[in-house]
């Protein structure tokens, strides 16, 4: 029962990710999808460390580390340089965390995709500033504990809808993906590679230390996120055509997803119901947009 995923490994062992890190697995899959003619751009995030310290690297493709907010702009420069030197084949992939995408990097991202720069921007979202020790970002979901939204004052604002923001830019391709559905993730990266223009892929990336979960449950929790519709898997083409790509096989209440993560352990029944309502409403809205 092999998976429809290319065999070549472009991520090497010895990288510095925490055991069970969703971000490292998603990179492994993304690189398999894109192949060796890829240039990685990594703004400040966990991957700035996972990539390995000087003088070592954990990826077999060229990698430019860059400042926190420059994921979109640095990539634009690289792509321009490649094209002016006659290379239209190499894929430029920005690989940023949620902080560098939703918050500090939002400007450069918006600018780059508005100009329809020809690159793939992938945000591996662990829903907080994990690299600096689990502080909240605008990607942190409602009710979650972080060090800056402690249990007495958990996050009160909902998670920013980054995909809607990207779709509003009317870029050729936006998608969500996660590690429990590796073939879906790979397919989306390969599809993105074949499109000229700006592509954005939002990856839910479980974080054992930050979500206070068992490292072994990384895939399981990622799967529950999709099955409970907290993180639906879909694509948006040119901001207009919405398509759900993975339909949950069974009905799963959000409780199943939340209860495996210590960052939600303080939630009351009321809180969980509130979350369930919002998830249901979000799913309906998505269904309406997708006409499915």
């Amino acid at each position, binding site marked *: 029962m092999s998976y429809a995923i290319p065999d070549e490994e472009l991520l090497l062992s010895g990288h510095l990710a925490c055991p069970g890190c969703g971000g490292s697995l998603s990179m492994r899959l993304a690189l398999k999808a894109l192949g060796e003619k890829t240039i990685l751009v990594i703004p400040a995030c966990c991957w700035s460390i996972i*990539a*390995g310290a000087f003088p*070592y690297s954990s990826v077999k493709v060229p990698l430019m580390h860059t400042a926190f907010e420059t994921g979109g702009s640095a990539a634009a420069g690289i792509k321009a*340089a490649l094209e002016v030197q006659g290379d239209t084949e190499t894929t430029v992939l920005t690989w940023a965390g949620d902080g560098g995408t939703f918050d500090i990097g939002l400007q450069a991202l918006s600018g780059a995709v508005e100009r329809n720069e020809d690159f793939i921007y992938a945000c591996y979202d662990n829903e907080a500033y994990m690299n600096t020790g689990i502080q909240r970002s605008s990607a942190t979901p409602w009710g979650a504990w972080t060090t800056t939204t402690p249990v007495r004052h958990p996050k009160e604002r909902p998670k920013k809808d980054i995909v809607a923001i990207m779709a509003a830019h009317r870029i050729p391709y936006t998608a969500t993906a996660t590690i429990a559905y590796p073939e879906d993730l790979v397919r989306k990266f390969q599809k993105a590679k074949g499109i000229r223009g700006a592509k954005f892929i939002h990856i839910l990336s479980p974080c054992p230390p930050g979500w206070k979960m068992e490292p072994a449950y990384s895939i399981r929790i990622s799967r529950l996120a999709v099955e409970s519709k907290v993180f639906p898997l879909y694509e948006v083409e040119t901001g207009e055509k919405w398509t759900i790509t993975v339909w949950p096989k069974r009905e799963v209440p959000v409780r199943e997803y939340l209860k495996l993560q210590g960052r939600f352990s303080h939630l009351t029944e009321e809180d969980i119901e509130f979350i369930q309502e919002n998830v249901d409403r979000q799913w309906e809205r998505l269904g309406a947009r997708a006409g499915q």
Partner: protein
Amino acid sequence: MEKVIMGNHAVSYGAKLARAQVIAAYPITPQTQIVEMLSEFWAEGLLDAKFIKVESEHSAMAACIGASSAGARAFTATSSQGLALMHEMLHWAAGARLPIVMANVNRAMGPGWSIWTEQTDSLAQRDTGWLQFYCESNQEVLDSVIQAFKIAEQVLLPTMLVLDAFVLSHTQEPVDIPDQELVDRYLPPYDARYKLDPGDPHAFGAMVAPPHYMELRYKIQKAMEEAVEVARQADGEFREIFGRSYGLVEKYRLEDAEVVLVASATITSTARVVVDELREEGYKVGLLKVRMFRPFPTKDVREALAGARKVAVIDRNISFGHGGIFAEEIKSALYNGSHRPPIFGFIIGLGGRDVTPASIRGIAEYTFEHDTPEMEIIWREVKNS
């Protein structure tokens, strides 16, 4: 070919002749014409470059860093607020050893909003590892763009050339625009030693722990030190091909000067006039133009001021809490040298306030009249002070 053009357009011609390949810039008064003319060149097929109309200056520098890392010749231009916004990335460009060239139009920092000339914006970036050249004329501006690429690509450090807002940027002067062929001879295409290349993958800019970081910084300083002679040589070669050169500093009538005025940028050209006048009247006065500010040409400065009895530094800038920056740098350059004349630090012309021949004359006279400065900063033409 000679044309009467504004300073900003001189920059444009310089970048075009230097065959900049990736230009990422964000508009800010008084820089806008630089990029506008480059856009026209490009639209007319005269410039084979990629334009990235970024959404901020921080992104402009980030894009240049990306482009240069991928092996392209990268160029941008900005001013004051924009330059300040880029600050983080200026450090990055130098640490990444990228030969990016930028034109900065000196403009005062807000608040309150000011679009007029002052040098604080670029001088405040003096610690970032960028080479800095302060230009006196539009010809010098054009020539310095071309020289900047040559020097940068050799020492592998980013380089900025600086011109005064409006006084140069928007003032039309006759400029000789060199032949592309000659420029090509002077400045071959950029051939990066290391770059982002799937055929030879490396990671650039990863975490560097204490055991290694200091050596990388040491190397940057060494490159800066090397840059002094590289710049001198580049200037020399420029003279050979184009018949013009500017030096790292310029000594004007210093031979028996008792008082030496030190100036930079357009104040220099006004100062030349005043020095000539004063000389007519019998004052033993001379002028030292500081063109290259980073790396600081300590040897040249010490040598130029070796005979001065007093030095009057004219700063159109200030480092709050200390004083005029050229004055501070010159004091520091002379301190360990053998000759330490009193140094008078004058601050004038902030926020674009006009610096007239009378202003400079006043400075010279003050210096002649006083044995010592009497205060660390001598403010000129502040109301009621």
